[in-house]
């Protein structure tokens, strides 16, 4: 019954899509009000997709195992919270969530943009409907979440235990809001191109959507990273893994777009560039989904999945790229650049964009090069983290310095370049502090000094600028947050320490400055898993820390997960992860000291808050 409701609402939604495509072509030329039929159809479509999503959610809640997706990914012993998150914890459900967000966003667009040009609104609806139709076809024909199993099984297979985690439960919806927000940016840019509507009014509307996507993408990436940090127990928060990279690429693009829309809004400049960025952001988000879902990317994050679905997404992606290229080259007029001087806010933003594109390029090459090489030479390779670190970190030095200077320049031409006394003092101060920090290292003193001082200088400047009335609050908050983020990341990577050892119960071992002791282990049955809690003592300079790391043995499906024991303080995290090997008495123990982890998360949140402030101001 539930399956039928879900299925039919999807099919009806597909029919409304076709109606909408037809209506928007037919009414494109009309310059009266927005056609009533369009408004009704869009609302109807959102409601239908909503119904189908709620049906799936409900099937998961009541554990309706006649549904294949529920059977594959749920279990009656699973806690309610994870039954709900199980809805999007699988391929079919997550696509339905994509679709839901797609249709909700276009509804919001229709109701929020009444003041804008009518043909532009209709065309945006048209392009968005193209995307929605594609997704509907994809869901109905290749990944239908409402497939029946006959006879109905009495028990499900369970959700992958590693996904049963609060951070990961909300990670996909947040990330998707970011990804899908870029679809409106895409549709509205194509529409604006065709209607020759690429003006200030459009730019300020585009900016809102860019901000929304950027906020959610920032938070989504952070949640994924938090999850990897404590659930995978690798003792890091970023591994330059392909799956992480595909979420970072649209972020670079969006950040560039965010800055560049200001130029379009204030100075009617950089029009073509804005459009290119807007289009590529969505293409990158889509490719990200495609690469993750198809299993083409060789990532440690990859889950077993069906490569045939990839072909559909690949075709869909190609069609979208072809459409955008055709429209871009057909409708984009040669821009008459308004004159700007070298030392101006515009130039600073253009430089920011160049850096973003460089970072994007590096990540892109590192992510897809292995795929190309395998297709061409059959050789299998992976690109290690040093590649990314070597190519990105040195370029952060000029980037951060420019970020410190850029925001205070004037539009068009900077009138006076005030090299105030305080600024020079701050610069000297940051170099001095950095040197004191870096001189503890035998190698690369100069490099570390430069890097830390660039980040510190940006931090000092951002702090002194907080009082500056001329600058926007959102920009001040985000830039300060970014400087804290970078400082924390640098210090974290410089000062992290780790030791690992295999111990039997009661044994202890001295490793460099740390004495590790495996005190005890206890067993407990909880909900749907068996918990093994170890007691580990770490003694460092007469300072004793007790840790209780946990191993969870799940029965359905049969898996083990480690839960790290983390002691968090503002300046440093101490964590212990354990693992065990069948048929041995040894416990595999790793102790890590990770400075400034909390600051990394807090500054990422602050970054998003900065975006939120900007969004609020734009809606006034």
């Amino acid at each position: 019954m539930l399956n039928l409701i879900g299925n039919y609402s999807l099919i009806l939604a597909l029919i409304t899509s076709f109606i909408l495509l037809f209506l928007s072509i037919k009414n494109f030329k009309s310059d009266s009000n927005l056609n009533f039929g369009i408004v009704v159809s869009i609302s109807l479509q959102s409601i239908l997709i909503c119904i189908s999503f709620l049906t799936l959610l409900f099937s998961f809640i009541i554990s309706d195992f006649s549904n294949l997706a529920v059977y594959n990914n749920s279990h009656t012993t699973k806690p309610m919270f994870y039954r709900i998150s199980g809805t999007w914890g699988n391929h079919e459900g997550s696509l339905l969530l994509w679709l839901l967000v797609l249709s909700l966003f276009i509804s919001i667009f229709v109701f929020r943009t009444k003041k804008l040009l009518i043909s532009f609104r209709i065309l945006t609806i048209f392009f968005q409907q193209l995307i929605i139709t594609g997704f509907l076809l994809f869901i109905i024909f290749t990944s239908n979440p409402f497939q029946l199993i006959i006879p109905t099984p009495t028990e499900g297979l369970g959700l992958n235990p590693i996904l049963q985690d609060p951070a990961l439960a909300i990670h996909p919806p947040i990330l998707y809001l970011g990804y899908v927000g870029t679809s409106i940016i895409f549709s509205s840019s194509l529409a604006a191109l065709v209607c020759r509507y690429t003006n200030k009014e459009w730019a300020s509307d585009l900016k809102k959507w860019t901000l929304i996507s950027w906020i959610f993408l920032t938070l989504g990436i952070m949640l994924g990273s938090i999850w990897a940090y404590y659930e995978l127990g690798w003792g890091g928060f970023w591994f330059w893994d392909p799956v992480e990279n595909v979420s970072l690429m649209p972020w670079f693009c969006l950040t560039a777009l965010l800055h560049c829309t200001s130029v379009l809004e204030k100075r009617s400049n950089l029009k073509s560039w804005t459009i290119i960025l807007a289009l590529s952001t969505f293409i990158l988000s889509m490719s990200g989904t495609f690469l993750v879902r198809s299993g083409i990317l060789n990532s440690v994050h990859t889950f077993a999945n069906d490569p045939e679905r990839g072909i559909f997404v690949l075709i869909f992606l190609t069609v979208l790229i072809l459409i955008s290229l055709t429209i871009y080259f057909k409708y984009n007029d040669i821009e008459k650049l308004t004159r700007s001087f070298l030392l101006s806010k515009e130039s600073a933003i253009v430089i920011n964009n160049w850096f973003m594109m460089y970072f994007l390029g590096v990540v892109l090459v590192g992510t897809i090069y292995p795929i190309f090489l395998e297709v061409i030479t059959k050789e299998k390779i992976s690109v290690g983290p040093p590649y990314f670190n070597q190519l990105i970190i040195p370029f952060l030095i000029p980037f951060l310095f420019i970020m410190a200077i850029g925001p205070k320049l004037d539009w068009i031409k900077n009138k006076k370049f005030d090299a105030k006394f305080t600024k020079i003092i701050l610069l000297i101060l940051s170099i001095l502090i950095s040197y004191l920090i870096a001189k503890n290292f035998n190698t690369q003193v100069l490099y570390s000094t430069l890097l830390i001082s660039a980040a510190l200088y940006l931090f000092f400047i951002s702090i002194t600028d907080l009082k500056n009335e001329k600058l926007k609050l959102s920009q001040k908050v985000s830039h300060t947050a970014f400087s804290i983020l970078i400082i924390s990341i640098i210090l974290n990577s410089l000062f992290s320490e780790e030791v690992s050892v295999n111990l039997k119960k009661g044994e202890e071992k001295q490793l460099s400055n740390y004495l590790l002791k495996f005190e005890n282990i206890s067993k407990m049955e909880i909900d749907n898993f068996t918990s093994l809690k170890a007691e580990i003592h770490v003694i460092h300079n007469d300072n004793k820390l007790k840790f209780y790391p946990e191993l969870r043995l799940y029965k359905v499906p049969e898996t083990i997960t480690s839960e790290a024991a983390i002691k968090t303080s503002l300046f440093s995290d101490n964590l212990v992860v354990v693992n065990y090997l069948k048929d041995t008495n040894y416990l595999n123990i790793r102790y890590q000291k990770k400075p400034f982890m909390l600051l990394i998360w807090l500054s990422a949140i602050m970054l998003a808050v900065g975006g939120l402030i900007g969004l609020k101001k734009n809606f006034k």
Partner: protein
Amino acid sequence: MYGKKVKLRFLFLSLILAVLILTIFLVLKSLEDNVVYFISPTDIKELGEIDYDKKYRVGGMVKKNSVSMSSNQINFIITDLKSEISVKFSGVIPNLFSEEKGVVAEGFLKDRNFLNASKILAKHDENYMPPEVKEALKD
């Protein structure tokens, strides 16, 4: 001959071009240095020349009864059912590491029969087999 403006523009363009070429060169160089090749135990036997300063990823299955543990290291054998290689590793093993399951170990080769691993890669899914391992086991 040419105006000052044209000269300036030409200078600017060539500067951009130079930076672009330099960047591409940098990216390619860094890529070449940091690529890790994936090979199976059989590939190692068949390799003409082994670069002992380069990292390799060896994939296959953990041989039954081959795992032995001591306080500071873990030893095991990776097999692709045709050839085998011994692996020494000290550090943290992933949750799903177990005998007769797929594994990928990354490190430096000491000789054709011995890998000094610095990392063992985790998988998230008990059904998941790294594509390389699947292929290595297939043929």
